[in-house]
């Protein structure tokens, strides 16, 4: 089991209450004022924005209506409940400037009147309409009435009284001066014939009035038509079957020759285009932006490859330790120095650590664990051992004395 790859927690996890109690006991023991240190963050965090105080009272009669004030224009949307019944007299008194006798309270009966839509037979004459329109234009609502209309709050539909006298829907009269036209039967027949003759392409023009009558001679028209058809048939040339076949072959040859000419033209054009493409080369057909893009991509890949090879992935610390410890202190690295140095190297020129290694290698090829009391070593040995550890050639175990006493 690899405990370093999968970290295991410490099993000791006291609750927050324990630490609160512990902090208090510590403060008691040191003799300072006992405060709650664990939860102080919440108490002194001045930057926490608290919600503003809610000054509006959410019970009793509201001083202001929450919804849009209702007017007599939308009486059917008013909710009629117990609260609104209690509120309605007060609201009317507060908001309405009408005298009391004009206020209709919920105690009175509903007096909603449906507007009287006048029947068509009751539509007044034109003169009467004009006079009424003039009156409507001249009568402007006073400012006082306008404000009352805007401010009156109606919370009970029973209060609403629709005054039909004020609701006047005026329809402007439509004046179309159409004089009646009267035709007798003969004129009607003449009109019918004119229309039918126009449909048949004949250009007969009739002048209509109350006294004239139209008489059309159908037989003459039919004769003329037959003559026209017959003359057209006579002018058409007549061919024998042999002549027709010859003509047909001639037409076919003409069509075939035209088709061949067109195909040759198309083929020639295609050959010209292909020859131009071959002459210009394939590189001219590729856009330069694509070429540059491909080159840039290749360069990016190449640079990434170089960077990847030059910068290696960092080793984990433990693997690094193992590698360095083996390569520097392990037996495999040492013989190379021995073989080269036994004959050629002057030992006096080596550093202290190299000399120790050199001697170790000569005397015992496999490093051994040595136990010694560091304090009893000579000064030179202490320096040497420290130097050895510094360059990584040996690892000193922990000291016997764990820690020096703290000067407290």
């Amino acid at each position, binding site marked *: 089991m690899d405990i370093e790859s999968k970290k295991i927690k410490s099993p000791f996890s006291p609750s927050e209450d324990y630490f609160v109690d512990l902090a208090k006991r*510590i403060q008691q023991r040191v003799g300072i004022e006992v405060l709650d240190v664990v939860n*102080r963050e919440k108490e*002194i965090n001045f930057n926490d924005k608290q919600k503003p105080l809610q000054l509006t009272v959410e019970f009793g009669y509201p001083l202001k209506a929450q919804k849009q004030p209702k007017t007599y224009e939308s009486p059917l949307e008013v909710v009629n409940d117990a609260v609104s019944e209690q509120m309605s007299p007060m609201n009317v008194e507060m908001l309405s400037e009408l005298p009391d006798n004009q206020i209709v309270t919920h105690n009175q009966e509903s007096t909603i009147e449906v507007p009287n839509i006048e029947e068509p037979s009751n539509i007044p004459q034109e003169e009467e309409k004009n006079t009424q329109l003039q009156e409507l234009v001249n009568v402007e609502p006073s400012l006082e009435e306008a404000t009352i209309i805007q401010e009156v709050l109606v919370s009970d539909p029973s209060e609403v009284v629709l005054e039909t006298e004020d609701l006047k829907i005026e329809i402007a009269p439509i004046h179309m001066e159409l004089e009646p036209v009267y035709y007798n039967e003969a004129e009607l027949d003449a009109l019918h014939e004119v229309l039918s003759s126009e449909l048949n392409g004949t250009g007969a023009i009739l002048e209509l009035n109350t006294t004239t009558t139209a008489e059309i001679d159908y037989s003459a028209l039919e004769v003329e038509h037959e003559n026209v058809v017959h003359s057209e048939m006579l002018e058409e040339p007549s061919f024998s079957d042999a002549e027709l076949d010859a003509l047909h072959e001639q037409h076919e040859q003409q069509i075939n020759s035209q088709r061949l000419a067109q195909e040759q033209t198309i083929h020639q054009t295609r050959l010209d285009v292909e020859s131009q493409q071959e002459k210009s080369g394939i590189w001219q057909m590729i856009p330069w932006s694509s070429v540059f893009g491909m080159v840039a991509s290749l360069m990016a890949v190449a640079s990434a490859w170089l960077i990847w090879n030059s910068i290696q992935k960092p080793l984990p610390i433990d693997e690094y*330790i193992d590698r360095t410890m083996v390569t520097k202190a392990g037996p495999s690295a040492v013989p190379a120095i021995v073989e080269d140095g036994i004959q050629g190297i002057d030992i006096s020129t080596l550093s202290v650590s190299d000399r120790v290694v050199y001697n170790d290698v000569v005397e015992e090829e496999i490093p051994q664990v040595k136990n010694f009391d560091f304090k009893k070593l000579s000064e030179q040995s202490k320096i040497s051992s420290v130097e050895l550890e510094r360059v990584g050639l040996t690892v000193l175990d*922990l000291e016997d004395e764990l820690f020096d006493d703290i000067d407290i």
Partner: protein
Amino acid sequence: MSIPNVKIANENMQTAEVSINFQRLDETQLVSYFVKPEHLESVFREVIRRHQKTVYTYVRNMLLSHEDADDVTQNVFIKIWQNLHTFRGESKLSTWIYRIASNETITHLRKVKPTIDFDEAQPEFADSLSTEPYLSSEAIERKLQKALCYLPYKQKLVFVLRYFEDMSYDEISDLTQTSVGALKSSYHQAVQKIEIYLNVL
């Protein structure tokens, strides 16, 4: 109540009440108040707030017993209170506190078992682990704590500081006054022993 109201004399010798929120200070800023007696209590409370969990957990990992850890943690903070004004910030505050905690732990062990050998493992502590309060129900975590009982104190110390407290080798070296190489060797030996223990059991 929780904010210290401090009267500070400015250049015109006029006093003004200043409330300092020590929780928002970093360690260096907090240490700078150690030398100011008027702030000492508030600073100490902040030190308790920041470090009591880590001190308790560290001591508990070393001693296993909750009662012992509770006593030692209190002693650690009493020592901190007594020497707070002497701390000059030459090392990290946490390192200083860990060092006090380590010494208090050793002192406690020597008091409980005068003949204790810190080079030897103390497997007898593992027996009482299951009856301890504030213990996780995770089996693997308990098993790891039992494995720690089979380590010599030195290796256990290095392992706890490195593995549980996530301290760097330099910090542990500063704390234990031991070379980094020796610490690494000790840590790897501890890991190997624990892994063998966990695989066998």
